[in-house]
């Protein structure tokens, strides 16, 4: 027969101070665990949600990011003319040869940071169904007008709708705010490719993004373009291209976070062991009584283990509660591939919260097992005799 659950709960309640301190310690560990997962998850999501499998992106062979790629106008013309490229209602190919550069502008806090400026062609928005102008209007080609990503508008000086932003010797009017569902376009400035080429004195493109008529035609397109002697190109699905970009940094954040959480958990387990050992020691007589009443040793082991897991899970839940406010906070970091800042929001998912509680419960199991075993293996007579 199992020992009633109420016995454990009352015991936890009876040692309020000790229970609270241990639970809070474990709560902080769970918080660190969830926090770092949310950080890595948010960063990854920003790049993962960028791009669609229906689109292909072409950059120069050997380049790892748009920034280090160069495609000449001639190359861009060849790429755009491929038969797999879908056509818009006007009959023109749904493709956008783009210029990608990085400029240094001031955050609202005053610190200068690198930001991606994308010179796009008229089809750029049609190609990217997730990206749309939520306020204002698209820039007009040929004029000193730009649209900015919503996170740029939020975080940078004079970058909101109607503001005038100065870079590269010109003053640009922000005519629209671009929103792209948390993808990396939210951290970009878009302008007219032709005009930006003149302004930056760079008569080459960095990439061509195009919509495919048929998703399955990607293989054929890729084969033809990559073997075309006129080009030095590599072709990727757009979504694959962007999620590859997140690889190193997200993995790094995750590894660092996991390392912190695991080492920290080790420290908390030492604490939990202490608490549970003390709990067992102070209840020696009770344990003896339970044994004398006929509860099995297994039941006692299970009971103490249960108590420890309840304590730790309680801590885990507090950790979740502490982690929830982190959700949605915007932060930014350097995206090394493009040498520019990418802003993203912390993403606390139900899965992460569950993982946090599970992690805490695991600490409870590890921290409770040895004391529970000690409790269960006490000889009855000896236990009853103790003070």
């Amino acid at each position, binding site marked *: 027969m199992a020992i009633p659950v109420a016995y454990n709960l009352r015991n936890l309640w009876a040692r309020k*101070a*000790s229970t609270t*301190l*241990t639970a*809070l*310690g*474990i709560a*902080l*560990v769970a*918080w*660190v665990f969830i*926090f*770092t997962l949310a*950080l890595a998850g948010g960063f990854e999501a920003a790049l993962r949600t960028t791009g669609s499998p229906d689109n292909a992106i072409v950059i*120069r*062979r*050997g*380049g*790892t*990011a748009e*920034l*280090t790629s160069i495609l000449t106008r001639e190359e861009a013309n060849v790429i755009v003319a491929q038969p797999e490229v879908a056509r818009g209602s006007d009959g023109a190919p749904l493709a956008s040869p783009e210029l990608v*550069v*990085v*400029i*240094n502008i001031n955050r609202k806090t005053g*610190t*200068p*940071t*690198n930001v991606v400026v994308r010179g796009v062609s008229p089809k750029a928005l049609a190609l990217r169904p997730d990206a749309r102008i939520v306020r204002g209007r698209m820039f007009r080609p040929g004029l000193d007008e730009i649209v900015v990503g919503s996170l740029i508008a939020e975080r940078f000086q004079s970058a909101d709708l109607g503001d005038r932003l100065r*870079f*590269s*010797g010109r003053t640009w009017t922000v005519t629209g705010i671009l929103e792209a569902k948390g993808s990396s376009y939210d951290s970009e400035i878009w302008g007219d490719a032709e005009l930006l080429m003149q302004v*930056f*004195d760079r008569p080459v493109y960095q990439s061509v993004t195009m919509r495919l008529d048929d998703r399955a035609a990607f293989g054929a397109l890729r084969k033809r373009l990559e073997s075309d002697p006129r080009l*030095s190109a590599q072709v990727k699905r757009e979504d694959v291209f962007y999620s590859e970009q997140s690889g*190193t940094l997200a*993995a*790094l954040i995750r590894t*660092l976070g996991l390392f*912190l959480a695991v*080492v*920290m958990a*080790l*420290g*908390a387990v*030492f*604490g939990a*062991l*202490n*608490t549970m*050992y*003390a709990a067992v020691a102070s209840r020696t007589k009770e344990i003896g009584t339970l044994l004398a009443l006929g509860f099995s040793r297994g039941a006692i082991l299970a009971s103490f283990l249960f108590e420890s897991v309840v304590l730790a899970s309680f801590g885990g839940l507090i950790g979740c509660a502490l982690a929830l406010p982190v959700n949605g906070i915007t*932060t*930014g*970091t*350097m995206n*090394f591939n493009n*040498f520019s*800042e990418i802003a993203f929001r912390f993403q606390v998912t139900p899965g992460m919260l569950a993982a946090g509680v599970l992690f805490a419960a695991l600490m409870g199991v590890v921290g409770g097992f040895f004391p529970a075993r000690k409790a269960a293996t006490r000889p009855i007579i000896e236990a009853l005799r103790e003070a």
Partner: protein
Amino acid sequence: MKFLRLIAVNLLRAKRRTTLTVFSIAVALFLFCTLRTVLTSFDAAVRASDAARLVVRHSASLVFPLPLSYRDRLAQVQGVTGVSWANWFGGIYQDPKNQFAQFAIDAPSYLDLYPELLVPEDQKRTFLSERTACLAGRGLVQKYGWKIGQQVPIQGTIYPGEWRFTLRGIYEGKTADVDENTLYFHWKYLNESLPPVRQSQVGIYILRLASPDLATPVSRTVDAMFENNVQPTRTETEKAFQLSFIAMMGNIQLLMSLLGSAIVFAIVLVTLNTMMMAARERIPEIAVLKTLGFSDRLILTLVAGEALLVSLLGGAIGTGIAAIVFRKADFTLGGFIPNFRVLPETVGLGLLLAAVMGILSGIVPAIQAARLEIAGALRKVV
């Protein structure tokens, strides 16, 4: 001090508890040192920068090159005693995961401007005289097991193609803050290998000043000089230049501090709990000590001293492990932080933190013990 033995005996009485507490504090301090070292390592380049050096880049951003023709005009600016330049190469050695910096430099002037890069004289001579030679930091050479004279193939990303350099020299940093994980090769070689449209382009210029006081006027003069050119410049001190990289990393500083405080706070809670339990168990003993004539103050000192000793022991273990592990292991965080090294200040700060943790967790039980009423407490003994 004669009571140190008493404290030690008390600690040894509950060996398991003492050990567990010491370890949990050691873990906290280990993590504290790790996080702080991430921050101090980011700053290494800032500490290594020289106040008498300026960096000139394109005003739009580092991505845009400057023309080589600026060199002579920069050299003529009053107060400038040396000009050198470098291009970020951004290549890949064998695998994209092997991240380290490569710069194409105008070697003679660069080594003259950066006396903190120590190269043996004979190696320097061969490096300077050979077009395809390269110079690598001690850290890199150790990491990849390179030997002088061997070929180092680098896959270009900004400058396409495979580039083969011959390792002719190994440099060491004059101070520990100087990065020893960079590869330098000749800008001339890079330039001659490029198509004509990409030739004669410079990533950044470095200026040496006659005195650090000239930083502001010289920066102004330089930027004014090129203001109306197609490639306007932005000139700043080397320190400001390096700081801007850290600023670009975003809120890392804040995140690290946040995580660090959570860790320390968690362990304080855990330790406080243990200390309170330990004191509670010993109520009868303390009562006996008081009966024997131990003053309240002495009891306070004994209980608090116990907590302090445990914390310091844990702190010493934690910081010690951090200092040793990160020196032995080649820990560069995937190449993001080349100079990952626990500074002596970090160790000192860690020990101080351990002491504070000890006092914080010991003070409550110590006061409780000191305030203990003898009669009531002794009754429990019987």
